């Protein structure tokens, strides 16, 4: 676990970025700004390791929200940031959570992309009484496994995601047989469990389920076994780097099946790395596409202007919204952990760039929409807008079925 950014470092970096972007930043408060009380917010996500691209996108989006807030003249507080790396590893995440929560200056956190880290740190935040809003992890137990007031989640859970994914594959696309490969983390296992449940409910058949270690390089054995079962769909429950390997090796081994993934593979990196192999891949993400929302276009423009090196990725907007919800709560009830936690838990109809955010009694955003995506010409395209939906192109799995 490393502290990659601290308030002073951030201030200097922000100054440089702000000069280019023309934004008034944290490092340069005006006269009134100099008198404002300083409040520190923590961001925790995977900044190194295999899922770092998602973590960096989330971190940048979080920093963007803070920069924008500090640039506003009417805010009561000046926000500083503490950015910590959880490496997508539970032990490292607990250390990061302990570091953030034991600092009395840190009022709240925007925490975790990986389910394994989010679930491991739930009790740490609870014991410290620090409000933590999850911005990317989708394991249901993170919010539904306890009654802690401190934990909220701005993104959806994998339950809704797999319900939509299974129904879409079986009922809309007409696929009946599936071979599942998942990583052996809580994330992969739980995805496989819910996907299996919903596929069977929809009338599909799971032929084979295989777990594989996260960051495994070679999937030849798993894919060869799957190929022998002749499934119509190879489904992968895991994150981008492994998803790329499964898809690329599927093509090399001549596995003639549709490839379908979870929200974990819906990243720009998947398309860039898998290149032509990515074409026709299906993935599902909670919420509507950022660019389709009223505030989404503005977010993407501000993100581009800020000059971040890495793209926001699929869950960047959630980190941005989480940071804004946390800062809204602090502005309203003051920088008091208990009051902020209680305020966040009661969030109703908050108007955000991902649409209205409303938490249920577990602090779970009841995201009403799951978006279906297909990889088309190296980009994730909303299914409804794609040439696959219009009939101009045929999904690989449907083409193989016809042959």
């Amino acid at each position: 676990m490393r502290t990659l950014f601290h308030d002073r470092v951030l201030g200097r970096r922000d100054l440089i970025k702000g000069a280019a972007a023309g934004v008034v930043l944290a490092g340069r408060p005006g006269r009134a700004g100099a008198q404002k009380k300083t409040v520190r917010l923590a961001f925790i996500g995977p900044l190194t390791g295999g899922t770092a691209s998602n973590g960096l996108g989330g971190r940048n989006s979080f920093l963007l929200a803070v920069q924008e807030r500090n640039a506003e003249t009417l805010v009561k507080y000046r926000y500083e940031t503490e950015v910590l790396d959880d490496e997508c590893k539970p032990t490292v995440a607990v250390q990061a959570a302990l570091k953030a929560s034991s600092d009395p200056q840190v009022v709240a956190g925007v925490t975790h992309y990986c389910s394994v880290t989010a679930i491991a740190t739930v009790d740490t935040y609870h014991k410290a009484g620090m409000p933590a809003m999850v911005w990317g992890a989708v394991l249901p137990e993170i919010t539904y496994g306890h009654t802690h007031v401190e934990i909220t989640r701005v993104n959806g859970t994998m339950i809704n995601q797999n319900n939509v994914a299974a129904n879409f594959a079986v009922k809309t696309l007409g696929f009946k047989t599936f071979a599942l490969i998942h990583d052996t983390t809580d994330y992969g296992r739980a995805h496989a469990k819910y996907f299996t449940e919903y596929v069977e409910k929809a009338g599909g058949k799971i032929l084979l389920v295989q777990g594989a270690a996260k960051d495994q390089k070679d999937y030849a054995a798993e894919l060869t076994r799957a190929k022998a079962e002749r499934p119509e769909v190879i489904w992968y429950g895991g994150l981008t780097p492994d998803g790329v390997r499964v898809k690329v090796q599927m093509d090399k081994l001549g596995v003639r099946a549709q490839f379908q993934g979870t929200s974990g593979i819906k990243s720009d990196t998947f398309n860039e790395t898998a290149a032509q192999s990515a074409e026709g891949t299906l993935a599902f993400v909670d919420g509507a596409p950022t660019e389709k929302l009223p505030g989404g276009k503005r977010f993407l423009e501000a993100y581009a202007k800020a000059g971040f090196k890495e793209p926001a990725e699929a869950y960047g907007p959630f980190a941005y919204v989480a940071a804004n919800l946390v800062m809204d709560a602090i502005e309203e009830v003051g920088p008091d952990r208990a009051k902020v936690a209680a305020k966040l838990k009661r969030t109703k109809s908050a108007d955000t760039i991902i649409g209205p955010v409303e938490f249920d009694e577990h602090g779970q955003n009841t995201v009403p929409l799951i978006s279906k995506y297909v990889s088309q010409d190296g980009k994730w395209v909303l299914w409804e807008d794609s040439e696959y939906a219009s009939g101009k192109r045929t999904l690989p799995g449907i083409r193989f079925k016809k042959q």
Partner: protein
Amino acid sequence: MLGVMYALIAVGFTLFFGVLDVIHFSHGDIFMLGAFAGLTALAGLGAAGLGAPAVALALAFAGSILVVGLLGVLAERMCVRPLARSSPLMTLLATLSLGLVIREAVLIFYPRGADPKPFPQLLPAGGFELGGVAIRYENLAILAIALLAMVTVDLLINHTRMGAAIRAVAQDPEAAQMMGVNLDGTVDLTFFIGSGLAAIAGILSGLYYSEIHFVMGVSGGVIGFSAAAIGGLGNVYGAILGGLLFGMVQTLSAALIPRGSEFRDVVAFAVVMLFLIVRPSGILGEKRVERV
């Protein structure tokens, strides 16, 4: 295919151990660096218009071997040689730390280093079926390159003056020095060869899997070392055998054992443990007799 790449990494481990009695734990990250050096060379050659696959690939191999080989020598001079008189634990810690530095440096300084990188496909596509088994030309080319690398190392070590010096130092450094062998130069050469082999393995991995990632050296290093230990640390042929065996155990356990893909590493490392218990010197390792 997996075994071939493990074997190339394992040969590096075994060479370093044979000559200096050190376990060079950043060797896995040197393997990763080889892949990234190859990718950078290919991108550079592409930009310069040298697009013919065979030429580009040959130049990428040469460039990567040179750069990574020299970095391997530098690693030895920085982390191994200064600690020659310290406890072996110090060398282990220093090389582990160096591996972390290399890994994080790629993450931070390589453009968008956090992401997996697509690796250009320069080997011939297509293939044929033989007895119901699909054989790809690409796989044959990778096997041929790996075999060529291993045969070259064998020739270098067993049939040249340079190789005689390496073998002499491995056997008895002091006696070798008395016979006129340049100890420092021989150690440098060994690290150059070992790291160069890791560079070849890195590029082959990129060609086979079509992508490389900055964390690829972590498991590559541990498995390479385990393969060298199975084969017998210090024995080049043992390392090759160990690499092939490790890859075979992993693949067979995933293919044949129910839910085996979840336990492939458990099975493979259990085999390593078994070897360490039953035959600590490895398959082809020699028993060391210490005179007192």
